[in-house]
């Protein structure tokens, strides 16, 4: 597995995403509450582009009429039929054993730390004073 620098952290605003081509794969990187998540940009159901998904909260209900929101922004709702996935691991909420989006490990590292490793940065120059999002594929 190689590590790829895909963006500087400032490039993906909170709640936003960036689509990157890593080793021929269409990957989408989301920025949620200070964390980054990388997933294949393709819904396992009928293939919708997940870059257009809504980042929503987990909504649960212990009984009719009572609603609880949690993990705000961490659930991904497919732009077509609305299937929901956990951004942390790509698992579907309704059938986690069988249906999931391929997800990839993500790290955020400072430019001065990056100097040492075997990284692949394809698209832009790296400055030591910035932080970068690294996806492992």
């Amino acid at each position, binding site marked *: 597995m190689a590590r790829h620098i895909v963006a500087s952290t400032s490039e993906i605003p909170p709640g936003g995403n960036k689509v990157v081509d890593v080793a021929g794969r269409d990957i989408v990187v989301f920025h949620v509450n200070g964390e980054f998540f990388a997933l294949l940009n393709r819904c396992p*159901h*009928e*293939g*919708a*582009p997940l870059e*257009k*998904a*809504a980042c929503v909260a987990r909504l649960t209900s212990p009984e009719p009429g009572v609603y609880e929101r949690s993990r705000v922004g961490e659930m991904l709702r497919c*732009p*077509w*039929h*609305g299937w929901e996935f956990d951004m942390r691991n790509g698992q579907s909420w309704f059938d986690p054993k069988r249906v999931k989006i391929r997800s990839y490990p993500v790290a955020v590292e400072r430019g001065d730390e990056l100097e040492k490793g075997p990284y692949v940065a394809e698209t832009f120059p790296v400055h030591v004073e910035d932080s970068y999002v690294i996806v492992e594929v």
Partner: protein
Amino acid sequence: MSEVIDRPLLEEEKTATTRLRIVDCDVHPSLRSTDDLNEFLPKRWQQHLREYGSHLRTPYLFTTPYPRSSPLIARRDAWPPTGGVPGSDLAFMQKQHLDPLDVEFGILQVLDLFIFSQQNLEFGAAIQRAINDWQLAFWSHRDPRLKASILVGQDGVDLAIAEIERCAKIGEYIQINVSPRANEPLGRRRYWPIYERAQELDLPLGIHVGGYGGHPPTGGGWPSYYVEEHQSNAHTIAAQLASLVIEGVPERFPRLKIVFIEGGFGWIPSAVWRMDQHFERFRSEVPHLKRKPSEYVRENFWFTTQPIDEPDEARHLRALIEWVGIDRLLFSSDYPHWDFDDPRFAFKTPLTEAERRKIFSTNARAVYKF
């Protein structure tokens, strides 16, 4: 006998290597704004639309009683980058849908202004006429893949017939669309002049789900949730199928072709089995029916595929398709709505190449004569 069932596969259709171009029987274009209609709508009705809005048996102007899962029931990726609402930008529709999915023909299904549910019949007729003209000017003439339908509401039968005649003379429309929920069940005799004219003109009757026509969406009344209401499309179509068949429409108009659009098809076997079973017992109540209900269904009716029910086991979907009949199904995507089906992934069960050709192309080509 149905020309579709009996139509042999052409030689080139049998080979897996020939490219399968798709006929999509349900594509939704939208008005960018009601001003688009101005050139087709007399001043009197433009003003009426501005001052009074729609005449619907729904609670608020330009709304439906239920939220629709996503704004304008649209895919989140279908909003044109140029602004405007999903389905309103031809160039974007071509780029996102028609070109990449290799759509050979797309049949336009207009839902704007809840055209069939207008209770002011003259106003309804005026906007039907405007929308029929707009379909040609804004869509079919700019992309010949896109085929227009003659939209008429059947509760103003005389107005509907006049509009059918006007459009039929133009000669570019490929079906006549009527309401899925008119004031009365669709088999009623008062609507027969429309069916008679459709048969004479050899234009299929298209019935796309949606709207209320003043009826609650389910036979049990008004549901609480959208997900609950969404089921009702199937019940409504099942009720209309029964009405049309049992009141004798296909018996009276044996060459009439009726296409139910966006009602899905999972409910068909039980509806048809039940009709047949009861027909055996109650023949004397409906002596005008000369044949079993299932025979009329297999010869006069077609069903578009979306939304496809997705059973856990692929073989169940396969069995369902066989029960309904490979010849009865016409592919539809419902672009750009949220429950859009992608033709490459929608059928989660194995189909042979010949079956794919029928569902994705040749059935529709035979019904609509492309």
